[in-house]
């Protein structure tokens, strides 16, 4: 009798996608050759490439896209060839230079290739990059300002390269506003022993789509503070990846976000500890208000076997102000060596404490004012650590404006300034 091979042990047909995974009578020929079955054993194994073709168009089922409304992002994910390249306007203090460079040079200056499709497209479609350089030993007190305005109805792609020389010190403020759809790759390489504060402000109009990948290579004994402030936009996704070029580097990732109805604000961080005796410290705080407000925070930390003496901590706090909002918070930690100083993370989501509210009201503070104080207090410690005075001031105003949406306009009483004063008065020095 001839042996009839059925497709499955039960004779039920199997879809082409599942074939590799299912055991079929006669062995699993496809399964032997496919690598799909074996999950990544660490976060560091994810693909990185300048070629957009290496990244399939996301469907929303992938781990790195599962929280993102990918159906809205078609224009930034499809390689249609449409759309222009981004133009940044810069205000440079003396000593800082900016110039357009070609794509090949941009790739050479960026040690960390794009980690997802929009970032690869951002590089490919920008046809070069803007290169901002802080020379070695320069100490720049005035912030370097790089402004980007999106234009309604337009999709734009851009690559920004920021390099700092050894023992330099600078503050860079990258602000985003306007409308349209923007995909951006920001490559930051800091020199040995340098000190950089990079603030990225996302204050888009309500219909803007913004995907940005910000890669930071921390030099030997260098210190980098990356501060993400996301307040506006329909869909905003900020992916921050950090690597260390040598021992002794430190990375502080601070973030503040405030989502209203209809907004999807996502922050993903990945700190890859490969060099010994480096530290990373991540603190993100977010508030949500309104139906369908959605925030995502994903903090991945990988400590590789060689990264002895690593110290890392990640913290995410979410404050849900009204019903229907959703906060996803996922801290992941992978550790491949026992010789670490310490590692940990914490995540908490809740609504604000009614007891605090009661306490303030019992002291004669009207409810609205009290709520505002509680929210300001929630953000205060992370805001205070930003340490760039005009950003801090602007941010507290913006938070008040956000709160005014759900609670009416800011009171004119003296209390409104309490928190701003407190935070502005204590500029925190850059951590070593």
């Amino acid at each position, binding site marked *: *009798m001839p*042996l*009839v091979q*059925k497709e*499955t*042990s*039960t*004779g*039920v047909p*199997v879809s082409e*996608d*599942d074939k590799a*995974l*299912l*055991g079929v*009578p*006669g*062995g*699993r020929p496809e*399964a032997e050759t496919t690598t*799909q*079955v*074996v*999950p990544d*054993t660490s976060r560091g194994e994810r693909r990185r490439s300048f070629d957009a073709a290496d990244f399939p168009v996301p469907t929303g089922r992938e*781990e790195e896209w599962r929280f993102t409304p990918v159906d809205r992002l078609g224009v930034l994910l499809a390689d249609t060839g449409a759309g222009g390249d981004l133009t940044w306007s810069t205000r440079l203090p003396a000593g800082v230079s900016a110039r357009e460079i070609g794509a090949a040079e941009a790739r050479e200056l960026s040690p960390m290739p794009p980690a997802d499709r929009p970032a690869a497209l951002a590089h490919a479609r920008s046809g070069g990059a803007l290169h901002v350089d802080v020379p070695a030993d320069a100490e720049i007190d005035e912030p370097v300002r790089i402004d980007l305005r999106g234009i309604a109805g337009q999709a734009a792609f851009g690559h920004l390269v920021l390099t700092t020389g050894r023992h330099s010190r600078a503050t860079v403020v990258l602000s985003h506003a306007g409308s349209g759809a923007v995909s951006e790759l920001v490559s930051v390489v800091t020199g040995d022993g340098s000190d950089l504060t990079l603030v990225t402000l996302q204050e888009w109009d309500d219909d803007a789509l913004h995907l940005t990948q910000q890669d930071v290579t921390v030099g030997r004994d260098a210190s980098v503070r990356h501060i993400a402030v996301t307040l506006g936009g329909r869909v905003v996704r900020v992916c921050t990846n950090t690597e260390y070029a040598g021992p002794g580097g430190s990375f502080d990732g601070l973030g503040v976000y405030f989502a209203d109805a209809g907004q999807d604000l996502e922050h993903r961080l990945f700190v890859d500890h490969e060099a010994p005796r480096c530290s990373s410290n991540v603190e993100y705080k977010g508030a*949500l208000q309104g139906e369908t407000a959605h925030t995502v925070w994903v903090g991945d930390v990988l400590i590789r*076997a060689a990264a*002895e003496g690593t110290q890392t901590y990640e913290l995410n706090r*979410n404050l*849900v*102000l*009204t*019903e*229907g*909002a*959703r*906060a*996803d*918070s*996922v*801290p*992941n*930690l*992978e*550790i491949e*060596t*026992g*010789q*670490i100083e*310490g*590692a*940990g*993370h*914490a*995540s*908490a*989501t*809740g*609504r604000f404490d009614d007891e605090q509210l009661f306490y303030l009201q019992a002291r004669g503070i009207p409810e609205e004012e009290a709520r505002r104080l509680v929210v300001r207090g929630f953000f205060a410690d992370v805001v205070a650590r930003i340490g760039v005075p005009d950003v801090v001031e602007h941010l507290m105003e913006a938070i008040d404006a956000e709160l005014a949406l759900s609670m009416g306009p800011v009171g004119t009483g003296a209390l409104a300034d309490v928190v701003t004063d407190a935070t502005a008065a204590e500029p925190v020095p850059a951590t070593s």
Partner: protein
Amino acid sequence: MSTIEELNPGLKDLGRYEYGWADSDVAGASAKRGLSQATVDDISGRKSEPEWMAKLRAKALRLFDKKPMPSWGSDLSGIDFQNIKYFVKSTEKQATSWEDLPEDIKATYDRLGIPEAEKQRLVAGVAAQYESEVVYHQIREDLEEKGVIFVDTDTGLREHEDLFREYFGSVIPAGDNKFAALNTAVWSGGSFIYVPPGVHVDIPLQAYFRINTENMGQFERTLIIADEGSYVHYVEGCTAPIYKSDSLHSAVVEIVVKKNARVRYTTIQNWSNNVYNLVTKRATCAEGATMEWVDGNIGSKVTMKYPAVFLLGEHAKGETLSIAFAGEGQHQDAGAKMVHAAPHTSSSIISKSVARGGGRTSYRGLVQVMEGAHDSKSTVRCDALLVDNISRSDTYPYVDVREDDVQMGHEATVSKVSDDQLFYLMSRGMSEDEAMAMIVRGFVEPIARELPMEYALELNRLIELQMEGAVG
């Protein structure tokens, strides 16, 4: 690779046999290696099961075929589903003898101080083990007076079909995941427990008491129903390593905790380290009910196990205490899952893991707060201890909150055993191994104290064994 179907072309026709399974002595497909409809029909036929169960098994097998392997977690590519025996008669099991066991397992048995008779029982499940039989009957009589049903799952289906049918698959449907589907298709053995309203079962019920029945199956299926206001503590497994020649263990445990009832389920898993241990455990909690999982993972090559509690009624409470040890070549991917589906529910997860000798421990958890589950509270705490340079520890907590009025906290720390701690203990005359074992014992103590005493003692001995040679 040639499979059973290729080698035995006639086997395919077995499934089409129209007249039922008249002669159970003929070795059917299920006693051989490989999975097919014939395997499933044969298992069902041997047990003379009702038709609905046979149909459910067939449906589950189709679901198993369709479901993909998990694309996350551990590397499961070493499992060859066509090279596994899906049903082994109890008489065949007893063929294993003490001599057949690998040396390291024998040594561990000796070190744990397990008596000779006990060894025989653990190794072979000796049928005529007089003492345990007596104990079992004694306990069963006491329980029966109160109306408690405590039998193996096959007996449960035979003797209490209506109750069984009402709840079987109600907590973990056949299509829940690939391995739940596999278990539903080929399950055999496990425990079936029903506790009537208001009954408190004072002693922990242990699978141990009825070892001679089909217990240590690869695909056991446990169903526990705690009726309103009742309490039961079930203990599964034991601390001695269980050697199995077959490399896949895929159990399903379903627990229904009714209003104001409380169930505690304790597992200490110590499979030999060739076993893929892929287990689905889930409980549903009605109003005011409490479910507690105490989950210890010591053995196996790969464990993927995330005991879940679905909090369906107001004021329901879920708690998971989990400890995992991963030694050389082991990956313990364990954790917990809490789904808050009603207001005022609370959950807590405490996980402790120790990795050594190149082993890998992962905490993987999910806390989900559904819309409407306001005033819910959840805390997750996971601590990992690393004792050398080559081991690995991961933490993957997921939190999904869809309601504003909740309190949610997660915290994780990973630390190494500090030289100061070791020095302190060694300066008091301990060897480095002893000092290390003591630190590890202290680390897991919050969970060890929740175990029944004899288990806690054995766990301590196991830690000592595990930590031997851990410091170099």
